[in-house]
């Protein structure tokens, strides 16, 4: 026998299921009026500093089908690389957004401010990125990934540097499609599978 540990174990995950919208964005799900508005409608408010960007994409399953029921959450720093709650953070950047794939097209849109570089571990600097968390029916534990930007210097980013198969780095980089417009598709499985994170 050995001494016992006092640490607890994390509660196991379960799928968010097909009705996650009822709990997380009830107005979107048709339960309008139960709350004044859905949580996390926008990560920014008027007056947010920096470049406003719109990221559009879809979450594809292993058959190439754009999922109509995916729910996403994003978390990011402001244009100066500060997270909400940190000293000097932009008061108009909450940094958090909750958004869903369109029921008919499977496309999602995130309108936000482009984040600045943020500190990493051991003095490293991370290239500008937005953290994503994806849940849906059939996803048994939420999937973490990141959105980087094609027109930023990603060469010294510690996370991207850890990806051994270099072509896979591209799965984390949003492609610029116009002024302030980016495309970021997420592939859960198969060809072009997005790099998901255990972080």
């Amino acid at each position, binding site marked *: 026998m050995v001494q016992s540990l006092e*640490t*607890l*174990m*994390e*509660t*196991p*995950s*379960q*799928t*968010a*299921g*097909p*009705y*996650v919208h*009822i*709990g*997380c964005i*009830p107005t979107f*799900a*048709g*339960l309008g009026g*139960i*709350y004044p508005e859905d*949580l*996390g409608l926008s990560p920014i408010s008027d007056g947010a500093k920096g470049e406003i960007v719109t990221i559009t994409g879809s979450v594809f399953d*292993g*058959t190439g089908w754009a999922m109509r029921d995916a729910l996403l*959450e994003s*978390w990011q*720093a402001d244009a100066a*690389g500060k*997270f909400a*709650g*940190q*000293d000097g953070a932009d008061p108009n950047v*909450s*940094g*958090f957004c909750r958004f869903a794939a369109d029921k008919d097209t499977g496309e999602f849109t995130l309108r936000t401010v482009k984040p600045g570089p*943020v*500190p*990493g*571990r*051991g003095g*490293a600097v991370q290239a500008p990125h937005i953290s994503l*968390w994806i849940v*849906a029916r*059939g*996803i*048994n*534990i939420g999937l*973490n990934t990141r959105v980087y930007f094609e027109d930023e210097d990603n060469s010294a980013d510690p*996370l991207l540097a850890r990806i051994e198969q270099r072509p896979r780095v591209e799965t984390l980089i949003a492609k610029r499609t116009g002024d302030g417009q980016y495309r970021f598709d997420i592939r*859960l*499985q198969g060809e072009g*599978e*997005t790099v*998901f*994170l*255990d*972080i």
Partner: protein
Amino acid sequence: MTDQGPLIPRNREIHPNPYDWHYKTSVSRSPSLPLLSMESTPSEETGPRFGHSTLGALDNNLILNWTKGEASAVGERILMHGRVMDENGRPVPHTLVEIWQANAGGRYRHIKDTYFAPLDPNFGGCGRTITDENGNYEFLTIRPGAYPWPNRGNDWRPMHIHISVFGHSFGQRLITQMYFEGDPLIARCPIANTIKDRGQLDRLVAPLDMAKARPMDFLAYKFDIVLRGRRQTMFENKIEGM
């Protein structure tokens, strides 16, 4: 901001298998390549905070919140309560907890739910609250019904309530489901059984808690939740700029 260590790496052995043949939808919705494992950074260690101003007075009362207190939902009245802690055993105060569930007949208020159990005009099916300074939360609701779902030939979901918890770090984000003590459908459910360790699945089963049940009013079930903690040693690197 005090310098805290990184998030304790997730122990994926306690979690469900992402790919599980018996839960058919997971087959095409699970990554086939390994996850990229890395120590957390400020991007995962920070996270959104939500204040009490977000909440309405009836938000944690699913019996009344759909009708704004006009009429009660049908079903067995229950108190769902518990504590949110981290892996270090510390309470997680002031964090948002959201729940959603079927009505007493096993029907969700959702366009995609076509089960012929009727909708309850007095029941919406979602609620939310913020934990107190000790990490405690409470919901008043009705016990959801079991229901059939299209998977294998005759699969039924056990009675369950979905729960979403934030914690204080985006890397702590968790959605899970609470089951009810004594439900024989748990052992037969392909979703519950995506968790391969039966002892871990038992941690999602809430016991009847008569100490919190209110005579002639409601029964109570206790459901504690543990989120990831942060490594706390005297040898953590200081994070630049934190």
